[in-house]
């Protein structure tokens, strides 16, 4: 479960700040596009309530151990927040199940289904990761 922040002002200011930090990291590695025509899209709607950002990965080359670790480092300033990384590669349609990672300051929840990935991505490993459970 993501953490809840009931105070709107607090949730919003942290959401904005973390949005900027995540964007600054990702801009170094790829391009953003909300329609899947580039490498990633960081959801720019703040749904409120939860300490959570949602990042869509459209190009697997962005899914590397160093980039994931950098995102995790960003969370050291935002310890109650998490980044949900959803894999959304255009063209895979229904052939790939919904999958992703949840990056938290202290852990990474690994919900990737590597069998669907091209061979070069099947051995991806993230330090400090664990498989997700129903309680996540």
């Amino acid at each position: 479960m993501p953490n809840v922040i009931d105070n709107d002002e607090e949730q919003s200011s942290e959401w904005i700040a973390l949005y900027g930090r995540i964007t600054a990291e990702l801009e170094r590695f790829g391009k953003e596009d909300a329609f899947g025509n580039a490498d990633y899209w960081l959801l720019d709607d703040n749904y409120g309530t939860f300490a959570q950002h949602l990042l869509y990965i459209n190009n697997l080359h962005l899914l590397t151990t160093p980039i994931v670790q950098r995102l995790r480092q960003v969370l050291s300033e935002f310890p109650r927040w998490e980044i949900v990384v959803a894999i959304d590669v255009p063209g895979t349609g229904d052939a790939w199940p919904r999958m992703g990672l949840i990056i938290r300051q202290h852990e990474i929840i690994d919900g990737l289904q590597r069998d669907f990935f091209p061979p070069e991505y099947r051995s991806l490993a993230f330090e400090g990761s664990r498989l997700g459970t129903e309680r996540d």
Partner: protein
Amino acid sequence: MSLYEQLQRDRITARIASLDAARRHADVLSLRSGLTGLGMQLAALRLRHALLRKYRADQPRVPAGNPDGGQWTDEGGSGGDIASKPWSSVPTAFASEKPRGHHFVPRSIYRNLPLQPETRKAFDDASTGRLHAEPHRWSEGHREYNEAVRERLGQFLNSNNTTPERMTPDQARDFVKEVRSSKDPRIRSFNLRIYRNEMMYWLRRAPRAD
């Protein structure tokens, strides 16, 4: 195959196609009806929740002289001087915002369009407001939603013989209505899921009548 058999087969094929079309139409009507119903139930639940909140005489109000003067405001008033936060690498486009929830017209679509300020505001204001239901991890079809709304906006501008520069706030609001009642499955199913999740959240929290 005889001519008679061929005719019989064509008749059956046509009948099946007709039944399929009727069933699809019924599905669309059912989903639209469901969406409308869910929206109304959600509004009713929100109202009920608001009414059940205890009155507090010390709750701050917006000072007189403001457009919202006299209205209740949240604890701490505006209090959101984001620039003073220690982590303030804040994108100015989002500054001083409260959570607005899901924007029916995604900001990625209109952020860089040369819209008039009031037209832009009409899109900015068209959102669900803060959402309370737990987000559904990586199960959303958000990219498809964005693509579909962008396509619809292009069609809307064409059919109204206008451009982003000339689009009026009323036209923006009309377009939002079109999105909210869209039959496009990429749009409808995404919005329906948000309404459904919120409704379930409020249903679980609503006090029981007994």
